[in-house]
């Protein structure tokens, strides 16, 4: 890790990981939300699922973004 810190590559790596995680969670979230909203028989369950998934994903990505910004 030290050589990464010394070379200044770590912030860049964190940005790449952050963007990859953001793209993955948004993509997967879209696919899952489509399934929940289209196929669930209970009208409340998909809404709760979408909100829960988005809230946790948003919280994690916010933390990661905060770290990347500080490190950058």
């Amino acid at each position, binding site marked *: *890790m030290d050589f990464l810190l010394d070379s200044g590559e*770590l912030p860049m790596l*964190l940005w790449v*990981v952050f963007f990859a*995680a953001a793209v*993955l*969670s948004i993509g*997967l*979230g879209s*696919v*899952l939300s489509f*399934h*929940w909203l*289209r*196929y*669930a*028989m209970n009208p409340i*369950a998909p809404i709760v*699922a979408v909100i829960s*998934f988005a809230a*946790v*994903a948003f919280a*994690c*990505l916010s*933390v*990661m973004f905060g*770290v*990347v910004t*500080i*490190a950058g």
Partner: protein
Amino acid sequence: MDTIHIEEGEHIILTVRKHWLILLRDSLGTLVVAVAPFVLFGMVSFAGFVPVVELANPYVVFATALWILLIWMTLAIIWTNYYLDIWILTDRRIFIIEQVGLFDRRVSTWGLERIQQITVEHQNVVEFMFGYGTLTVQTAGLSDHDLSTPGIPRPERVRTKILHQIGTIGRLEAMTKKQSEMIKTISHEAKGYLARDAAALAEIVEQPEGVPANVKKLAGSALGETRRGVSELMGILSGDAQQGEMTMERIRFDLVDTVRDAVELARPLAEAKGLALTVHAPSSLMFDGDPAKLRDVVIKNLIENAIHYTEKGSVTVSVSAHDGARISIADTGIGLSEDDRVKLFSEGGRGESARALNPHSTGFGLHIAKSIVEAHGGRIAALSDGRGKGSTFVVELPTLA
């Protein structure tokens, strides 16, 4: 096919999702993997092998957030696969929906009438304790395979519901068969009486002399009615409308000739009431369909109805080409209220004054006529400006491809 289509009149009886323990079992691996790094990290730090890293270290926070996000996404996929796997029992079919991964969704449908045997199995002590098991449905037919679904909660209850529903279908089928046989027996008996009446009336009508004119006229009218009754009973005896199965002929014929035939069949009835019965039609209009059913069950029926419900004035039959054909039967009779128009084409539906003016009406004629028109891909409608203002029945028949 990835969605289910519940038919009109079909009711959902039971919706079953796999036991919650299945979700827990599937998630357990992910949860163990999720907490493993934290436990390991805590253990090695506690043992003093590595220095305790500050919790506020931004890189540890980043890695932790990333780890939680990945675990969260995995759990979401597992939950989706669990939540969208579902069994639906309706009063006619069983739907089995399986969500396999993110993009593969399989829907199988099984008619209850094909089910021969249902077995329930608890494969281990956990299943027995938590009250879930494997439900296996064996079906008839060479191409079918047994359907075995594990993880069904309270499978005995599901089996009982399915068996109960199969029993209900069997009872209904037997009852319908019995009713159909009874209708045919009664119709056959009644047809015999009506045929003898028709013969007697024909004898009176055809007498060259010795029968007063008014009696002859009355007998002629009664003969027309009796023949109509015989024809309707013949329709019942041939199966058709009562069984919900309509065998339709499809031949090319001249619709104008068919309409004129129907008019001529109804003319004695109009003359007996002193009504003018006129036809406006082109010389010819070719059409594909069942001429006998259109003539006897639709057009003649509508014309005779118009005559029955018209005390004075006229009945006018018009035929025109209109994206196929358009037949209208307009009368100067009692007219229709809004309520009449709504219930007119339903089974047994009749207008407010229908019973008084036409006590012999069964109320099924227009319903059957509507079925015939719809079987030709057309539509039938009743128009009226209100009570006492006459009515017009319109039949639109499209050109069949």
